[in-house]
């Protein structure tokens, strides 16, 4: 518990910082790819329904929990949760709200550093006249792909520079650091996105191939196929996207909101930040990668190659088709907006740690930020060095995917069922500058936990291929004595390696699984180190109160 001097400078600053926390690389890279793979224009229907039934309730719950914890001088989830119930379990469970952020920040800062490098290279005109093969080689050389264990000198230096920028801003505090950056980065990000969207909407047919037109790309993204609505896989994909895009289940929203006073609004703030994120994702995010790529490479190429790496391996080539001046402008706009999207999110990921150690150990902002930097460096280096061994993906799977769902499910149960919906509803509506629809009360209590519970259980037990029919096939398989056919990415299979068995070496050579499992143990060790810190903090509080 602390008497912090930290506060937000202005309400608009807080909303921009909160929107910046949510707006990330996924808004521009994950959303359009998910839409293309899940029914095109129809994807938006389960997406918006998930936003209304799961996204908005979780936003309100997290904002309310944060402000409630702030009343007791707590700014990180272990003690925010502890204030809501006196069962010790929740205090330690709250460690997820620090751990997840540090785990994601470790690899996210690395991607952020790519965008910084690419922004500078675009500005220098290094991508003028390049073809796709050259871009591919440049990227592979830059991250040193192909050598098994990577040691990309320039990429590591860029990572260190990006991490230092993050740490410096965090050390400046909330209003002088994070809020100031959000106030500059968010308008620039929206401006850059609008510029690229207008370019995409006005390019049309390029004549490079029969179906090379940005309109065909937009049509591909937005043409509804209503038959896909009956497929639960589409609903899960949409619900998953809402999770990642809003940055719920992480602990960052709690932390930002914990610096608010009880009489100040959270309901309208949450809606404003949430819809702003939706605008960046749906209006701007959908207009850039897929339509422009279809415009110059055709639909077939995009269907075959759509993915995260298009941002680096394809976009500079596409911008180059607009002539040298526009190419440089578009390159700077694209990688600049990705950098701003990245840094506003990674700064948010650093704040739960900052809040925790300042509250509990009275560390200065500088000390807290520097130690965070050292921890992120230690956690991030394995994702760089063993990138090709699957360590990067392993971090993303546990900290960037599974942890979010577990934490969100637990927190909504805590809020609605343990803390109680009467007190919870009062927390959401206290000081509200809008009328919060009353039907959200049963939604928060019943629908949202059910929604997240289904996502969690299906991820836990996902059968091979994961289609609806595969579930009944899996049950039949169990009754026939053949066991459950696990999907490779089901949580159970990921934990126990059921499909492959545990193979750490082959012919005396360490396998990728060895590196992956070691990184998993390392993450577990980090989690328990944080648990130990919470235990020490808790003992310290007991002594102070005695």
């Amino acid at each position, binding site marked *: 518990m602390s008497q912090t001097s930290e*506060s*937000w*400078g*202005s*309400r*608009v*600053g*807080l*909303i921009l910082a909160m929107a910046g926390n949510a707006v990330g690389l996924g808004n521009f890279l994950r959303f359009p790819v998910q839409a293309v793979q899940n029914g095109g*224009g129809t994807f*938006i229907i389960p997406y*918006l329904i998930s936003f209304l039934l799961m996204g908005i309730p979780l936003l309100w719950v997290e904002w309310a929990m944060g402000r409630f914890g702030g009343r007791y001088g707590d700014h990180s989830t272990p003690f925010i949760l502890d204030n809501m119930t006196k069962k010790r379990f929740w205090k330690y469970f709250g460690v997820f709200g620090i751990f997840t952020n540090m785990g994601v920040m470790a690899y996210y800062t690395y991607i952020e550093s790519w965008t910084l490098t690419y922004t500078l290279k675009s500005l220098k005109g290094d991508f003028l006249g390049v073809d796709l093969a050259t871009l591919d080689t440049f990227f592979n050389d830059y991250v040193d792909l192909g050598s098994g264990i990577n040691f990309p000198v320039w990429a590591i230096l860029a990572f260190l520079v990006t991490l230092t920028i993050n740490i410096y801003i965090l050390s400046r505090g909330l*209003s002088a650091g994070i809020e100031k950056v959000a106030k500059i980065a968010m308008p620039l990000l929206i401006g850059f996105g609008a510029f690229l969207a207008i370019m995409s909407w006005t390019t049309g047919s390029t004549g490079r191939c029969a179906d090379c037109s940005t*309109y065909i790309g*937009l*049509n591909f993204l*937005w*043409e*509804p196929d209503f038959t896909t609505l009956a497929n639960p896989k589409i609903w899960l994909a949409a619900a998953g996207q809402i999770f990642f895009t809003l940055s719920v289940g992480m602990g960052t929203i709690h932390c930002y909101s914990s*610096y*608010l*006073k009880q*009489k*100040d*609004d959270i309901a*309208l*703030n949450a*809606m*404003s930040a949430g*819809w*702003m994120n*939706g*605008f960046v994702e*749906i*209006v701007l995010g959908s207009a850039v990668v897929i339509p422009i790529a279809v415009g110059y490479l055709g639909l077939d190429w995009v269907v075959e190659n759509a993915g995260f790496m298009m941002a680096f391996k394809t976009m500079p080539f596409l911008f180059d088709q607009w002539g040298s001046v526009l190419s440089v402008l578009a390159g700077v706009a694209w990688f600049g907006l990705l950098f701003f999207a990245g840094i506003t999110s990674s700064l948010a990921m650093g704040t739960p740690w900052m809040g925790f150690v300042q509250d509990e150990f009275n560390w200065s902002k500088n000390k807290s930020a520097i130690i965070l930097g050292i921890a992120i460096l230690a956690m991030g280096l394995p994702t760089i060095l063993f990138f090709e061994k699957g360590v990067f993906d392993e971090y993303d799977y546990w900290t960037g995917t599974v942890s979010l769902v577990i934490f969100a499910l637990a927190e909504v149960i805590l809020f609605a069922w343990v803390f109680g919906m009467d007190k919870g509803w009062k927390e959401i509506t206290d*000081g509200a*500058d*809008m009328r919060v629809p009353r039907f959200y009360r049963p939604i928060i209590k019943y629908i949202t936990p059910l929604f997240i519970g289904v996502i969690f259980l299906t991820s836990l037990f996902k059968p091979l291929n994961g289609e609806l029919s595969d579930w009944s096939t899996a049950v039949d398989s169990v009754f026939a004595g053949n066991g459950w056919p696990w999907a490779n990415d089901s949580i159970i299979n990921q934990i126990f390696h059921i499909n492959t068995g545990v193979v750490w070496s082959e012919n005396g050579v360490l396998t990728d699984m060895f590196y992956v499992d070691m990184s998993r143990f390392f993450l577990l060790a980090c989690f328990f180190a944080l648990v130990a810190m919470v235990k020490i903090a808790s003992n310290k509080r007991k002594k102070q109160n005695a």
Partner: protein
Amino acid sequence: MTTSALIMIILTQGTVLGATIYFFRKVLRMPPNEEPDSYSENDNDPR
């Protein structure tokens, strides 16, 4: 573009853009709470 794609794009993007502007405008138009509030920049504003 097909008509159905055009309808989807206009309806969806119109709704999202409308909601974003509506809520942000509402925030901007709200009078600040009495001091002490959560925000430091208006601490010295005359009341």
